[in-house]
């Protein structure tokens, strides 16, 4: 069987040699940072107005990460395209002829995809946090404050897991247009709306994005069903399930 390091090297060449990688990852960084910085600035200028009606303590970390909702969309698109472009171009048959061990191929792809997503997410999370805090002035927090480091690393893990989850779903659907058509409305519309509807929201609380985003909170919310690490676990399970499903479909299906 083809050697695993060779597969990793090959997948790295694939991922770095298309422009969509640069665009989607740059967008993840710019959107997360830009929106977070903007909201941090506005919050600092109009603090009383912005925090009116808030019951808990002010979460400066969360304010800095205000842009993550949009940033996650960019990294989801990255995950979808990294897997999906092989299907749209028919290249999947060339890939499988080169590496007929289909499960190993998908693992190699996921490792490269995940490593790159994690690296970009970590940079994004830390830069966003520090820029946000510098703009929050007197209302800022520090990386050393309780749970803050966890929240910043959590933001990076959250983005990485959503990227890999989307990759797994794309491998299951073996069609990038379909995958985008399902994932984007799900994360952008369905999940946020459902988590706001009474009763239904207990279901929405088990969705990967809600679960994963628990890690970003420095102060736990009252109605939160589980803690940040449980949320991470649930999000991780979703991701592993999606990738396992993708591997299963890839193995079973004619290419």
């Amino acid at each position: 069987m083809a050697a695993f390091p060779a597969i990793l090297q090959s997948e790295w060449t694939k991922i770095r040699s298309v422009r969509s990688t640069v665009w989607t990852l740059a967008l993840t960084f710019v959107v997360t940072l830009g929106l977070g910085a903007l909201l941090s600035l506005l919050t600092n200028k109009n603090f009383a107005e912005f925090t009116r009606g808030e019951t808990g303590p002010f979460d400066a970390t969360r304010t800095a990460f205000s842009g993550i909702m949009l940033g996650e969309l960019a990294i989801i698109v990255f995950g979808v395209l990294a897997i999906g472009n092989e299907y749209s171009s028919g290249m999947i048959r060339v890939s499988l002829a080169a590496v007929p061990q289909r499960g190993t191929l998908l693992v190699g792809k996921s490792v490269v995809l995940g490593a790159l997503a994690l690296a970009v997410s970590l940079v994004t999370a830390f830069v966003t946090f520090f820029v946000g805090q510098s703009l929050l002035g007197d209302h800022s927090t520090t990386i050393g404050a309780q749970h803050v480091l966890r929240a910043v690393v959590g933001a990076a893990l959250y983005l990485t897991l959503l990227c890999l989850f989307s990759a797994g779903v794309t491998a299951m659907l073996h069609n990038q247009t379909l995958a985008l058509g399902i994932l984007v409305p799900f994360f952008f519309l369905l999940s946020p709306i459902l988590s706001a509807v009474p009763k239904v929201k207990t279901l929405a609380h088990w969705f990967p994005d809600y679960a994963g985003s628990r890690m970003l909170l420095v102060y736990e919310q009252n109605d939160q069903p589980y803690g940040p690490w449980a949320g991470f676990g649930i999000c991780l399970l979703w991701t592993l399930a999606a990738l396992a499903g993708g591997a299963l479909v890839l193995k079973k299906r004619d290419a």
Partner: protein
Amino acid sequence: MIELHQLTKRYGEKLAVQDLTFQVPRGVVTGFLGPNGAGKSTTMRMILDLDRPTSGRVVLDGKRYGQLQEPLKYIGALLEAKAVHPGRTAYDHLLWLAQSNRIPRRRVDEMLELVGLTSVARGRARGFSLGMGQRLGIASALLGDPEILMFDEPVNGLDPEGILWIRNLMKRLAAEGRTVFVSSHLMSEMALTADHLVVIGRGRLLADLPMAEFIRQNSRSAVRIRTPQVEQLLDALRGAGLRPQPGPDGAYEVEDGDLAALGDLAAKHGITLHELSPQQASLEEAFMQMTADSVEYHAGDGPSRASSPTRGEPPTESASAWGEGWQPKRKGN
């Protein structure tokens, strides 16, 4: 050596490939012929383990494809042109392929040079013509320096120069001792390249034999005679019990005639000959006859028609779709 054992592929109700058993011999160009939709591409995908057979198996020197160590070093395939990410450069496309099978990077440059894409190697595949895509596909097939090469319709979309290039390339690869398995629906193309033939129709094996043997078995041969003394020639031929048929440009043809005997006959009667030449039917003609027969057979015609050839009857729908060329000639038989 590629061996297919009772390979069968079913898509829902449709049997794309039925009970296909044949071997691709080493060191020659084997043409894989069949009308469009005969199951050629499906068969090739099953050889590469891309499509899973419903039953039967493919064995490559005793191994299944999935058991091959770094398969690109053993078998290289061109299945479809432009199976390339449109935003990736030709160089990077070959590079990731090379890396996946630990093929040295210099092979990438060598293959680009070989297929004549060096000047556009840094260009994204989006801007490639079909012919350039085809050349890139051939470069990927040759990348691992494999002993077996498989090409699915390689001349599609190529200009005459490109077709000539592929033809020579395949001959050269076979001359180097490699096994070349190439599919086509163009008979004229196969006639120029293939040494061995495998013909399928509707997913079934119709023929598996050397090219010359195929033509000998499936076609008529004739001797063409041209003379200014037409009446004397016809009298002489008829006198010898032969039945000359009018050929092109005032020539006559004698079915299954013997060159030497006809020459002697003309000399005996003092007839001047301007042409005395053997005529072999083209591969195209032979192929048309074969697929036409297979169409009749598979259409489930009654036993009376199946047992006696249907000469002179109107061609079946498929047969007429296949060749306009052969029918008039056969009427003359």
